[in-house]
C-alpha cells in the first residue's frame, strides 16, 4: 500500500485539527517567550528563550505520529501547524514554514528509525533526539549558532534536548496514556488503516 493511499479524509482532518488545537494553545504562551527573551537579553543569552520553549512548538509532531501511526503523520502535524500559522499572518512568515518543515523532518525521523512498528517510550525518546539534532543543525546555519563558544553551544543543545524530551516525550506520553485510558486509541476511534 502506498503511503498516500493510507491517508483518508478523516485522518487528514484529524491531523489538521490537532495541529490547529496545539497552535491555539501555543498562542497562549507566546507572551512567555517575549518575557523570557527580555529577561535573558541583557546577559546575551536571548537564544535560551527559544531553547527552553522549543519542545512546546515541536510537540504536535510526536503527538500526531504516535496517535495516527502512519508514515508522514509527524511531519504533517508540524508542517500544517506552521503553514496555518503563516497564513494567519504570523510575523515570522516564510521562516515559520521552513522551520515547520525542518521540525517535521526531525520528529518524523524518530518514527522512521523504528520502521513505524514500535510505539512506546523509546520511540518518543528517539524522536526527541532526532528533532533536537535536526533543528539544532538548522539553527547553526540560520541563526549563526556556529559562532558561539563551545561551552555555550553545548549548553544550548542540552537545554533544547531537555525541552524536547519533556514536551515531546514525558508530556506526549502522559497525553497518550490518558487517551489510552479513555479507550480511544487503536479501538477504531482513531483512524488506523
Amino acid at each position, binding site marked *: 500500500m502506498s503511503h498516500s493511499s493510507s*491517508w483518508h479524509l478523516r485522518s487528514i*482532518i484529524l491531523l489538521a485539527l*490537532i495541529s490547529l*488545537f496545539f497552535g491555539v494553545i501555543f498562542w497562549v504562551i507566546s507572551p512567555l517567550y517575549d518575557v523570557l527573551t527580555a529577561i535573558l537579553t541583557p546577559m546575551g*543569552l536571548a537564544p535560551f528563550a527559544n531553547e527552553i520553549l522549543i519542545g512546546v512548538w515541536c510537540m504536535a509532531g510526536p503527538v500526531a505520529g504516535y496517535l495516527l501511526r502512519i508514515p508522514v503523520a509527524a511531519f504533517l502535524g508540524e508542517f500544517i501547524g506552521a503553514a496555518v500559522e503563516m*497564513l494567519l499572518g504570523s510575523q515570522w512568515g516564510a521562516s515559520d*514554514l521552513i522551520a515547520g518543515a525542518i521540525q517535521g523532518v526531525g520528529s518524523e525521523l524518530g518514527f522512521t528509525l523504528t520502521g513505524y512498528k514500535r510505539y512506546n517510550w523509546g520511540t518518543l525518546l528517539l524522536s526527541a533526539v532526532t528533532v533536537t539534532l535536526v533543528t539544532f543543525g538548522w539553527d547553526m546555519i540560520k541563526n549563526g549558532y556556529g559562532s558561539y*563558544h563551545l561551552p555555550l553551544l553545548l549548553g544550548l543543545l542540552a537545554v533544547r534536548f531537555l525541552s524536547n524530551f519533556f514536551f515531546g516525550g514525558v508530556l506526549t506520553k502522559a497525553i497518550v496514556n490518558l*487517551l489510552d485510558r479513555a479507550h480511544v486509541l487503536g479501538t477504531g476511534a482513531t483512524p488506523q488503516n
Partner: protein
Amino acid sequence: MNPTVKLTLIMVLALEISFTQSITMNVILTLLGLIYLLIHRIRWQTLFYFLTIPGLFAAALVWSLLYQGTATNHFAGVIFSRMYAYVFLGGAFSLTTTPYQLAQSLEQNAHLPTKFVYGILAAVNMLPRIRREVATIRSAAQMRGVTLHFWSPVLYFKAILAALKWSENTAEAMTSHGYVEDTPRSHVITISISRCDYVTAVSLFILLQGILFLPVP
C-alpha cells in the same frame, strides 16, 4: 500573481538567504517585500508591527552572538537583516493571499490531492470554534478549581477528544454531501498560471542572483 508561483518563489528565496551571507541581498528582499505590501495597501498597524517587533528579537539574537560568541560585525549584520528579509518575504505572501486562494491554487496548479486540500481547509475554517473550545476547556476546569497550564496533559487530552469527534463528523458530512476521495472534480473557478507569472518569477529570481556577485557586503 498566482499563489503557488508566489509561494514557491518566496520559499526558494527564503531558503537561499538562510545559506548566503549578503546584507545587500537581505536588504533588497526586505525592500521588495515592503513595496509589494504597500502596493497591496496593508493596514498601517500591521506594517508598524512587522517593522518593529522582529527588530527587537533580531537585536536580542545579534547582541547575544556578539557578546557570547565570535561573530564579526558583518555576520551580525547578516543575521539582523536576514530576519527582516524573512518577515517581509513571508508577509508578502501571507498578508496578500487567503487560505482559500492558496488551497484552490494548490489543488489546480500544484495538483495536490483534493483530500489534503479540502481536509485541511475544513479544519482551518473551524479555527474560531477551536479557539472557543480551548477557552471552554480551560474555564470548565477553572470552575472545578483546576487551572490547566500549557504543560497540563489534560488540556491536550480534551482538545484531542474534541478533534477526534469533529474530524469524524466533518468527514461524514463531506462524504454525505457527495465528496469522494481520489476522484476528479470540476471547478467553478479555474485558476491558471499565466506566462506573465512565470516570466516575472524566473526573471526576478535570476536578477536577484546578480547581487551575490556584486562587491558589496
